[in-house]
Structures are given as structure tokens and as C-alpha cells.
């Protein structure tokens, strides 16, 4: 029974990391940009939820999605579009700059101290199923993640814009040569990364009950590691990588001797360093990303 509970924990964290890795992987696949400012999309959504405290839950969540999507689109338009022809290192540094800028805007408006927020307190309960106690939040997270993954799969397989995005992810220059609008595809990727970030923010807020201006930072690091483990440039890889990193983390937490547990992350990242030495292309190999034009 304990094992089942651990498995649910593992899938839950795997789902969270998968969403985070997808947000980072999506932008990388169309732009060769590792967007470290993705974390601030999470922060923006979380602070929107906080700012609308007292409003109906639907409005708070909806507004948070809108805020994250808008911030993502503004980042793209103002910071990244003018640099689209720049080399990846320049883009990377720019994403750090955007990240710090947004963080300190949040400090300016809301202060630097962590703030307590209550979102959907009903979800902190557990449903009893025989001897099993199923935390509702975890169940909801897994369900929402699965629904999002299904919707994204449908979008990328069936919708014209989704197919255009897959083409652009594989060969951006050629995509333009068949008439795919570069701006449209990239803006769509940023908008989607905003949606993914908002869902993550809901989980973070509901689970921890606090928000702070640095709340996105750790998650984006794990997202980056997950995307690399999955295979940079492949969306399936990003989802699998996130799942793998999350589940491994929970497994280590459960099965490491208690005195070693404080060093769980050292073991976690050590494992993935070893993995990447053996398989540097990641889980899912995607033909090398050409330099974009």
C-alpha cells in the first residue's frame, strides 16, 4: 500500500516536472533559446492569483493564465524578437536579464518577503480509498497534466498551426521556405509556454500556500535538466525527461537511507550527469538543431 502511495507521489512530481520541461523545451525547439525567464511566467501567474484574492476561483485562475500568456508574448516581442538572428549565447544571457528584471519588478510591487496565499483549500484533503489515502491535489494535478498532454498531442498532430510548429521545430529555415510565418509560430510557442507555466503556478500555490519573487527559479532549473535528459528539441523527450526526473527524485526520497536523504538532490543530479555522459543526446534523439537564419 505504501508503495502505491509512493507511486502516486512519483507520478505527481513527474507530471509537474514534465509540464515545466515542456514549457522550456517548446521554446527551445522553435528558437534555440533556453528561456530561463520561463520561471517568471510561473511567478506572474502565482502573483495574479494572489492579487485577485477574494474573487471567484474561476476568475483568479483565468486571469492568471491570461497574465502568464501576456507576459510570455511581451517577452518574445520586446526582448527576444529583435535578437532572433543573434547567437544562442546572446539569447541565453538575454533570458537571464529578462528573468532578473521581472523578479525585481515583482519585488518592487509586492516586496521581497514570501506571502501566504490560499487557493482551493479543499484540495489539501485526502480521499480515502480502502487503506489508501489519496491526496486530492496530487490526483487533480495528474488529471490536469494528462488532459493538457492529450490536448497538446491533438494540437500538434491535427491542427494546421500545430503541424507548422512541428515543421518549424525540425527545420526553421525550411519552414519559412514553405511559407510558414516565423513570427506566428514563435508567438504561438510562447503563448503555450505561458499556459503551461500558469498550470504549474496553480500547483505550487495550492501545494505550498506561499509565493515569492524567486519561486520560479528552482523549477526552471529542474525543467532545464529534464529537457536535456529528455533530449533538447524533442517535445516527447521533454515530457518523458520531466517524468523521469520527478519519479527518480521521489524514489530517492523514499529509498535512500534516512541519513542520506538531505543530500537527495546531489544523488539525483549525480545520476543524471552519469546518464548524460553515457547518452549525451538524451532520451529522444532529434537530428541536430541547425543554426537558424
Amino acid at each position, binding site marked *: 500500500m505504501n508503495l502505491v502511495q509512493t507511486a502516486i507521489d512519483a507520478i505527481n512530481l513527474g507530471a509537474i516536472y514534465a509540464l515545466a520541461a515542456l514549457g522550456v523545451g517548446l521554446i527551445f525547439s522553435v528558437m534555440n533559446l533556453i528561456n530561463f525567464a520561463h520561471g517568471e511566467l510561473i511567478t506572474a501567474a502565482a502573483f495574479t492569483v494572489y492579487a485577485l484574492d477574494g474573487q471567484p476561483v474561476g476568475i483568479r485562475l483565468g486571469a492568471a493564465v491570461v497574465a502568464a500568456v501576456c507576459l510570455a508574448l511581451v517577452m518574445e516581442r520586446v526582448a527576444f524578437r529583435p535578437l532572433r538572428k543573434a547567437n544562442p549565447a546572446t539569447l541565453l544571457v538575454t533570458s537571464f536579464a529578462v528573468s532578473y528584471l521581472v523578479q525585481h519588478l515583482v519585488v518592487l510591487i509586492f516586496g521581497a518577503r514570501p506571502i501566504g496565499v490560499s487557493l482551493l483549500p479543499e484540495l489539501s484533503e485526502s480521499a480515502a480509498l480502502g487503506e489508501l489515502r489519496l491526496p486530492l491535489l496530487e490526483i487533480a494535478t495528474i488529471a490536469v497534466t494528462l488532459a493538457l498532454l492529450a490536448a497538446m498531442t491533438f494540437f500538434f498532430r491535427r491542427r494546421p498551426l500545430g503541424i507548422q510548429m512541428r515543421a518549424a521545430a525540425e527545420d526553421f529555415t525550411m519552414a*519559412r521556405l514553405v511559407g*510558414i510565418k516565423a513570427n506566428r509560430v514563435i508567438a504561438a510557442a510562447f503563448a503555450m509556454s505561458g499556459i503551461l507555466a500558469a498550470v504549474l503556478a496553480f500547483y505550487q500555490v495550492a501545494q505550498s500556500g506561499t509565493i515569492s519573487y524567486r519561486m520560479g527559479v528552482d523549477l526552471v532549473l529542474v525543467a532545464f535538466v529534464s529537457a536535456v535528459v529528455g533530449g533538447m528539441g524533442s517535445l516527447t523527450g521533454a515530457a518523458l525527461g520531466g517524468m523521469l526526473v520527478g519519479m527518480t527524485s521521489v524514489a530517492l526520497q523514499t529509498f535512500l537511507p534516512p541519513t542520506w536523504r538531505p543530500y537527495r538532490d546531489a544523488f539525483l543530479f549525480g545520476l543524471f550527469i552519469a546518464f548524460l555522459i553515457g547518452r549525451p543526446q538524451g532520451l529522444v534523439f532529434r537530428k541536430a538543431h541547425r543554426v537558424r537564419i
Partner: protein
Amino acid sequence: MSVLLSVDDLHVSYGGIAALKGVSISIDDGELVAIVGPNGAGKSTLLRTIAGLNVPRQGSLLLRGKPIIGLAPERLVADGISLVPEGRHIFGSLTVEENIRLGATTRTGRLAVKTDIERMLSLFPILKARFRQRAGQLSGGEQQMLAIARALMAAPRLLLLDEPSLGLAPLIVDALYETFTELRTGGLTVLVVEQSIRRALRAADRAYVLHTGRIVLSGRSEELRQVDNFDQAYFGAVT
């Protein structure tokens, strides 16, 4: 015959190195024109510049008299210019069908697109058999056919082909060139870059010889075939 594309005194450089040094060519509606020349002559650069991937330092590019320099590649596809780049660049993780449909991205008429897909599949029957397969699984020749079909799906006025015969068996190359001739009778204008001079001169109405960024010789194919110093021009002895 009206002029479809005119290129005048085109200068293009890559990171300070001049690739094209004042190239002028002109193509009439319905012509099949070849650009030949050795490696590094600037043939691909010329095609890529026409397709909007390079911005020239100097010179002019007119499509039906309208300047097109500075327009994005995706915009030029809508204006009727389709490039099949060297190395084909099909979307390997997408299906053959998705590749073909993506060719029609800039078009709106659903019915016309559907008719054109049927046309492509009868033009290249092998693609019909592979319709639902991943394009990456196709052989080199099949990929070249797919790349051409994808370009044709945009219903271009001007088709730019960069080394379509590279790495293909002679029999397949024959079949490809037969297709180009066929498409021409349908009113398509084709500008093809070739390393194989003989092949190019057999199929094309006219040819330009490009060498180190300059046009060194040009004329009708049957005239060029008789030029004594053709090989010299090709290999660079004539200036």
C-alpha cells in the same frame, strides 16, 4: 514574353566575404533557365538571395517589375517564389502527407489544394504509396520528389531548384528532368542550379555560367553547347 524575374548587379557577402559580385540575370515567363558553375561559384547564394534568405549589399531584385529585396521568405512564397534547397530539407519526422500539405501553407482555396495533392500523387506515384509514412524513411530520390512536390504545392510562378540531381541515380535524374519539362508546358518558370553542365544544357532554354561570384558566360543552351571555350569558362580561365 514578359520578364518574370530580373536580377541586376547583385552583391551578396557572408561575414565580409563577397559571394556574389555584381550578378545580373533575367528570366522570362515560362522559361527553364540553368545556372552552372563550379563549387563555391555562388550558385546557391544566388538562389537563396532570390528566395529571401540573404539580404544583398547592393543591387536589385524585381519580380514582375516589383522590388522584392527585404521581403521575408514566407512572404515571397505567397508571392510565387518556391525554393527547393540543396539537400532537400524535407521534414523527416513528419509524414509524407504532412510535408505535402505544408507546401500549401500560403494558399486558401481548399478545393484547389485538394486537386493539387491529387496532381502531385499522379506526378510522383511513389509518394502515394508512402503517403502516411514518415518522410525520413524515404530514399534519397523519393525525398527529392517529395521536396519538389512540396514546393509545387505552393502553386509557384517561379520554381528555384538547387542541385536537384545531387546524389541521385542517373535514371531517377532523367525522370526528374522529364517532370520539369512537363511542368514547363504547364506554364511554370524554372531556375535550376546544376553542377552537371551536360544535363543542364540538355534541359534548359538558356544558361548562365557563374564563376567566383560573377557571370562569365551566358546564352541559349544550343549555342553554349557549341562554344569552344565552354569548359574554360566553366573552370575559370575566361574572364
